[in-house]
């Protein structure tokens, strides 16, 4: 038995056009129309007919009106989309948890299709017993749940030499924040019996890029997670299904996807990803290596170039995200005048370690131009620097770890643009 609404569903445009005619033709109206908003005074298809039944979409997707809230890439950044990056639509999200379906992707040789049954995880090197685990084995160890942000070290990297891309999604969207379920790496290392000579672990993925990074044993034993669920469900293919590493507060490249091997060793491998890439060249040509921690950072997600102010003067919610790889966010300040004066924003809830914080400044807009900035402060007392302060130390060629204060120039028509200020 099926009940279905059989009538044609008018488009929103047709409906509003019809309403406008009805309004203008009030003089000739044979049928009296009630005064007021037709969305209220007229019977509407959703209030008369029937909606979709259950199971119409066994796994739900966002409604069509939200179809612009998607990941996007910037074609000219990379040679192809296989070794490439796209960006989370942070300008359109709220709260702190990033839905998996729009969380940014970064692959070095494409997202691979690795069935759970074919998954193997090896621990070898300086251990008493080199071991192989199946996916099922991992599910039998005690698990933990934690919310952490994952930020690509190259987030905002295009902006080192100056304002480039016009939108928070593109300047700051190489970040996502999820609740992970997994087994502490420590548990697996203990199971294999890691030896005291083991000062490092090398973690490696199963994809053709063999992305691998060396992590100091201290971190490996501290809070690193071998994760298989995110936001309550299996990881998505593009985020490393069935198992990825979670390295709280540290650069995204270390969060190895399709994790296949953990090798305990006495020295770092100095792999391509920790020498050629993910090293930060200073003005004098010397490069920093092992810059694992993500510095405290924040960005206003709305208003912003992709999320202009669509209303006039009066109440305005300014909102954004703040995070730190060194701990919890303590405070976020917002400036409307390019950094002359600051007011402290409201954190939606107390900051959590290595997780995104949402901030709000509930304010009144006078309709004048604004130079909007946000400035994060973490529990270590580190204050997000200006881009000038950063460049004074690091020069222009670092590519990675750009955590400078972002400025949006909001004009009196509510539109916003990515700018830099003195």
């Amino acid at each position: 038995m099926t009940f279905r609404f059989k009538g044609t569903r008018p488009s929103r445009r047709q409906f509003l056009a019809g309403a406008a005619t009805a309004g203008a033709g009030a003089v000739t109206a044979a049928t009296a129309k009630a005064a007021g908003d037709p969305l209220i005074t007229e019977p509407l298809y959703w209030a008369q007919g029937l909606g979709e039944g259950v199971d119409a979409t066994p796994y739900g997707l966002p409604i069509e009106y939200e179809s612009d809230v998607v990941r996007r890439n910037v074609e000219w950044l990379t040679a192809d989309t296989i070794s490439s990056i796209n960006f989370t639509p942070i300008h359109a999200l709220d709260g702190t948890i990033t839905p998996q379906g729009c969380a940014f992707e970064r692959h070095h040789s494409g997202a691979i299709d690795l069935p759970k049954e074919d998954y193997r995880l090896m621990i070898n090197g300086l251990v008493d017993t080199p071991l192989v685990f199946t996916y099922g084995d991992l599910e039998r160890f005690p698990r933990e749940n934690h919310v952490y942000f994952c930020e690509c070290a190259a987030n905002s990297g295009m902006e080192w030499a100056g304002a480039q891309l016009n939108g928070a999604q593109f300047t700051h969207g190489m970040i996502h924040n999820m609740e992970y379920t997994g087994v502490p790496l420590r548990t697996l290392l203990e199971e294999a019996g890691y030896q005291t000579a083991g000062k490092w672990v090398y973690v490696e993925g199963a994809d053709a890029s063999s992305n691998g990074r060396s992590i100091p044993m201290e971190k490996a034993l501290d809070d690193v997670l071998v994760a298989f669920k995110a936001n309550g469900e299996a990881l998505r293919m593009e985020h490393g299904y069935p198992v990825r590493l979670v390295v709280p507060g540290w650069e995204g490249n270390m969060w190895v996807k399709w994790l296949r091997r953990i090798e305990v060793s006495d020295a770092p491998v100095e792999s391509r990803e920790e020498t050629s890439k993910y090293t930060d060249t200073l003005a004098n040509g010397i490069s920093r290596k092992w810059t694992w921690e993500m510095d405290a950072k924040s960005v206003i997600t709305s208003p912003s170039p992709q999320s202009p102010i669509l209303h006039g003067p009066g109440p305005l919610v300014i909102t954004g995200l703040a995070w730190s790889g060194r701990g919890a966010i303590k405070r976020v300040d917002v400036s409307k005048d390019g950094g002359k004066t600051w007011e402290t924003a409201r954190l939606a809830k107390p900051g959590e370690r290595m997780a995104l914080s949402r901030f709000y400044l509930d304010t009144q807009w006078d309709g004048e131009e604004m130079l909007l900035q946000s400035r994060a402060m973490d529990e270590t007392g580190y204050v997000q620097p200006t881009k000038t302060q950063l460049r004074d130390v690091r020069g222009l060629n670092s590519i990675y770890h750009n955590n400078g204060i972002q400025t949006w120039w909001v004009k009196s028509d509510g539109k916003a643009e990515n700018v830099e200020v003195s």
Partner: protein
Amino acid sequence: MSKFHSITFASSIVALTLCGPLQAEKFGLGRAALPDEIAAWDLDVHPDGTGLPEGSGDVLTGEEVFAENCAWCHGDFAEGVDNWPKLAGGMGTLDHEDPLKTVGSYWPYLSTTWDYINRSMPFGNAQSLTPDEVYGIVAYILYSNDLVDEDFVLSRENLTQVEMPNANGFIIDDRKTTEAHFVTDPCMQDCKDKVEITMRARVLDVTPDTTE
């Protein structure tokens, strides 16, 4: 399921009280990895040469293999094609605006080049090269960077002796000291006299189809 592992499991309980923190409670999950399995996956090569297999290759052989497998992305002379990575050149540019970072100008260890090519290249057909081919290709990339002569032969024996130009170009993360001034009490009022826009976004239409 391995007997070996369960023996370790049993003996570790005995060891538990004896040697402290490294011996935690075990679950007896997983099985022992077999030597052939470890050999198949444990391919990484360290700067001291640990992990390098036997073999050797000369520049000219390397050039042939490179021409066939690599040049259409990385260029005949490893100079790069279009947006694909350049593997040669850029010497002396690291302190310039837009430095050119290549195996020759930037990479501190030659082991990394061997390791990366062996495990990850060619793009789309990784792990298809023999050790000798990889030695030859690496020799050719060195040659393309003017670091060796054309009669050079690279082998397991001499790989760690090749000196890379930027070997001393790296320091360990020093943010704690050089950026200690970012730990501060931030200014709230009258933080600067005037504010001017110094630069606007270069790419305004980056969003493909902004919906209204």
